[in-house]
């Protein structure tokens, strides 16, 4: 999962709002994860078209933070989520 990789949710994994509990959840086969605030910002931008670099551009602008640091953090987070089957590199 480097800067050019395009992450997407595999079939059977979905991010959705859990309005009854005031949070967002990732729904997966017989499991549900509650992403932390940072992961949620990233996962909301995962659409199967935007690259890791593209997500970094948006978040760097939004949080006024150094882009290289953000891209490295995002790539690491997505690698971890990919190992757990939550995202795949498209």
């Amino acid at each position, binding site marked *: 999962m480097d800067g050019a990789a395009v992450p997407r949710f595999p079939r*059977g994994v979905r991010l959705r709002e859990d309005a009854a509990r005031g949070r967002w959840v990732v729904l997966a086969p017989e499991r*549900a994860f509650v992403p932390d605030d940072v992961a949620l910002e990233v996962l909301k931008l995962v659409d199967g078209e935007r690259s890791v670099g593209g997500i970094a551009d948006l978040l760097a602008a939004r949080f006024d933070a150094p882009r290289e640091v953000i891209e490295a953090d995002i790539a690491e987070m997505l690698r971890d989520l990919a190992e757990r089957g939550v995202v795949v590199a498209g």
Partner: protein
Amino acid sequence: MTGDEMRAPPPLGLLAELTHRCPLRCPYCSNPTELHRASRELDAATWGRIFAEASALGVLQVHLSGGEPTARRDLPAIIRHAVSAGLYTNLITSGVLTDERRFAELVEAGLDHVQLSVQDAEASSADRIGGYAGGHARKLRFAPIVRAAGLPLTLNAVVHRQNLDRLPDLIELALTLGAGRLEVAHVQYYGWALRNRAALLPTRAQLDAATDTVNRARDELKGRLVIDYVVPDYYATLPKACMGGWGRQFLAVSPTGLALPCHAAESLPGFTFPDLRTTSLQDAWNNSEAFNRFRGTAWMPEPCRGCARKEQDWGGCRCQAFALTGDAANTDPACALSPHHALLDLAVREAAEATHEFTYREMGRAPAPATG
């Protein structure tokens, strides 16, 4: 308890038992021993209303089960109702009734995930346990249909004395079929399984070998296969938080529309379970006596009442307490602190002497209650 103290957190999951009809006759079926016929099943529109109410209440995932849920001709319509309610849909199936064309209808309706059961890794034994000739071969044809459609697949292997030695083969089968998850589910002994307990209880040596197998496979297959595995109650010293606690995270709805805190609860005497034909799901969950009876900790007897773990295991399984002690309000005998804990050792010793004969699950053939 009053007011706020009684207010339950909303449920996360709903088990929809769409029918009790099933071509298989597994002797450990989790359905009640009194099975209902097709004429009493809820129609698709009523399931649609229940799903909408469940979603509004906070349910995220619906598990479409049975019996065999694909025995319902209107399953695509039922799935569409769940999808339009925003629920994640999981089909729990034996896979023996579904060909490519029929599965395409379920996918088109929006199905998210399939859990396929197998009775063994070896066809002749699997067909004998399921009581259905040719069933295993049909399952092996069904799994590739699921994978070809791009859906994630979980393999569910119910294990017991008569198949536990083939656990390595079951793990291999999960890999061959392209499953991302494998549930190694020890039989739970109430209802049909309690009647067949002596033929099904594994030995301690089998259990230890299985636990080693799972631990090794989890290491070797990291990133390829997730294995769910829990040590069975009959060899446990601490009870499990059955259903995450009575009326805390989960509910089941029977084919005829009864809301149940657990799929086996219908067999408990002295309950009036809410009928969702006439009661809303929200009212059933929040206000019914049946859901409130074993909520929280105030109902607990000793040794649960004074136990530091009472909000971890919630007293264990009510159905097992009833099945073994005759009182659903007792501490689960799986707990080493239960005055009835010795019953489990006794059952294990009896099973060591027993044959492998089953009483198969069939409509109109409720087994005599087991003693013990």
